[in-house]
């Protein structure tokens, strides 16, 4: 699997997690990211309002 090759490059890398194909695809999926954009903004607005 192409996206798993970094596990073998370094002992440090072998002990963490690396995103698979689906997770990487969702990062640039426009429809999903528009939804996440709304969610993140709403969360940030709550954080801002709680901070003032």
């Amino acid at each position: 699997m192409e996206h798993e090759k970094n596990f073998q490059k370094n002992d440090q890398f072998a002990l963490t997690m690396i995103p698979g194909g689906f997770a990487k695809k969702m990062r640039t999926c426009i429809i999903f990211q528009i939804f996440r954009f709304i969610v993140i903004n709403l969360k940030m607005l709550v954080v801002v309002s709680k901070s003032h």
Partner: protein
Amino acid sequence: MARLVVMGGGVSGHTAATFAKKWLGKEHEVVVVTPNSQWNWIPSNIWVGVGEMQKEDVIFPLAPVYEKAGIDYRQAKAVSIHPEGKEDDDTPFITIEYTGQNKKGQTDELTYDYLINATGPKLNFDATPGLGDGNGQMGSHTVSVCTADHAVHANEELQKIFDKAKAGERQKILVGTGHGLCTCQGAAFEYIFNIEHEAKEAGVRDMIDIKWISNESFLGDFGMGGLHMKVGGYVVSSNLFAESLFAERNVPWIIGAHVSKVEEGKVHYELLDGTTGVEEFDFAMLIPPFAGVGLKAFAKDGSDITSKIFAPNGFMKVDANYNAGSYENWKASDWPRTYQNPDYKNIFAVGIAFAPPHLISKPAQSVNGTPINPTPPRTGMPAGIIGKAVAHSVCDLIKNGENAKLHEASMAEMGAACVASAGKGVLDGTAAAMTVYPVVPDFEKYPGTGRDTTYTYGEVGLAGHWIKHILHYMFIYKAKLYPGWTLIPE
């Protein structure tokens, strides 16, 4: 008529001065003293440092903005504070030395009724031999992205590295912190991923080894002792989040490192286990440690009271608990709420200029006794919120008298948003967007992680990248005081 003097025109000082002037109106005077002629949206220096933005995109001249707002702008650096006035005059004042406005080198005295210290940090390059030039400026071995000019220089050097890589010469890039007591790991974190992204875009990623070096005891500490966030139904440490980002991009790391010396192409470092090492590089961006700007303070009789007003690191003492003792005794309530100096009630300190009570991260030192731990971040959103709260307090003191209730903005009760974005295109960028609430963990209120895991989270994707773009334009719009600027939150 009362006079408020604000020393510094960065995020916190600019926020404090502009809100204070808006609330005080023409009846009272607001003066800003800053050595800079330009305002800089520092988070976007990262994009200047990789050539995705020009210097002009992240700065604008302060004079027209302050003229429009009715603020008295002095392009000068503050030199000393005299909170008790002189022998023959009780009016407190500061001394300033002009850096522009055709008065360069001239000194002046500026009286005040209220004083806000928002000077930000001194970039203490000389704390690490070879990182500075010995005269307080950045040395020639490494680059920085702390100022717009530094970022322009960083990009020029980076492009040379890309050119060599394109010519078939293998290159080594090192990014991180240049001392054991640095803060602002987030800036270096964002820069290394931008470099990695640009190297891929330039088709030279396979010819460049990129490595991270940091004083954090674990990746993802960020000077906040790390954070826990909800991901996929789990509550996970930022350590796993950060390591994953590095591993995915084939960027190995050296952590718990105090950079002890920098030479041409070489960094010497000491690790927490006491071992030492040398890392070679062709290009290195190392963040310097921060210190106070070196303001002095004098009593009425002329005696030096700097140590009474300022902590040993040069930052101003405020209403924090500076006697909290060891890590086990630290509490959220140690952190300041009003930012008022305990000895002089008409002096406040905001943003990086206030002295934190202690670290947020767990203290650490090498077996040789060298302290190696990140110092607390006080930039960005917290700096703006604190600046606004203090402006509110000063306005109430002026309008309602010295018994007016002060406004509060504890970092243990406020959140922060951090977006580390790589690339600049609308569809090909990627970002790690994080929010943390509160910045200083409160283990009494949130047993376990010290924070509210509903609002402490992080994720990678285009959405965060879009937010980073919006923040850039929105905050510059706000800082220019364009219509509706007060509606944009800090």
